């Protein structure tokens, strides 16, 4: 990860910018969107302390901190937002997490809770909410690597 940042630093023009967009280390949540509001059914967890999206995102934070400490970049701006994925069926959610989120799992209990909530109201939708950070960094020259 640090090597990727070093290369990005090299390939940027002096007045260029690095934009880093990725999930924060905060877990993603399974929610049900009802007419009365949003209800949290559970969260997406790493399968272990070392393997999973939350651990991966924490390592990315560490790599970025190293790049800043080495003087390759200065941080100019950072925002966070919620990225939402909507589904109509529990199977879609389960398959998405299994297929797309390496090292992640979602408890059957959370899926069951979501299914029960969804069944209470026609048109209720399922959604995965993930917290995303996006940062703008400016390369600093003549620091050496």
């Amino acid at each position: 990860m640090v090597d990727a940042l070093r290369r990005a630093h090299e390939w940027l023009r002096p007045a260029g910018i690095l934009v880093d967009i990725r999930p924060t280390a905060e877990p993603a949540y399974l929610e049900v969107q009802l007419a009365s509001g949003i209800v949290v059914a559970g969260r997406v967890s790493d399968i272990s302390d070392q393997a999973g999206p939350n651990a991966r995102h924490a390592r990315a934070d560490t790599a970025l901190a190293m790049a800043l400490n080495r003087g390759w970049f200065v941080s100019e701006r950072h925002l966070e937002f919620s990225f939402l994925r909507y589904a109509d069926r529990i199977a879609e959610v389960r398959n998405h997490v299994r297929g797309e989120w390496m090292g992640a799992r979602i408890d059957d209990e959370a899926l069951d809770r979501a299914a029960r909530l969804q069944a209470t109201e026609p048109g209720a939708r399922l959604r995965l909410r993930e917290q995303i950070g996006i940062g703008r960094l400016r390369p600093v020259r003549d620091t050496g690597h």
Partner: protein
Amino acid sequence: MELDPEGVETAALAAIAPDLHGRRVLEVGCGSGRLTRRYAARAGEVLAIDPDEAAIATFRTGMPSALRAHVSTQAGTLATLGLPDGSFDVVLLAWSL
């Protein structure tokens, strides 16, 4: 699944990088081009890379004709890509760090 129908991600990118007009962009981790499609029309030239060759193939096949003139794709990573220093105005790490 339906991803970000509200376009929050696109709005955040526009807030962080408001001036992409005419800029040369390297997007790292483009996948099948979900995010690229949302901003590339505002950029100058885009090189979009991803290690997943199947995703790159999907991106190429489904790329809107309006983007073909200024978006190129390549299967690979930052480690395998040989590029001269100082080549890009923007390096976008798209969910890839």
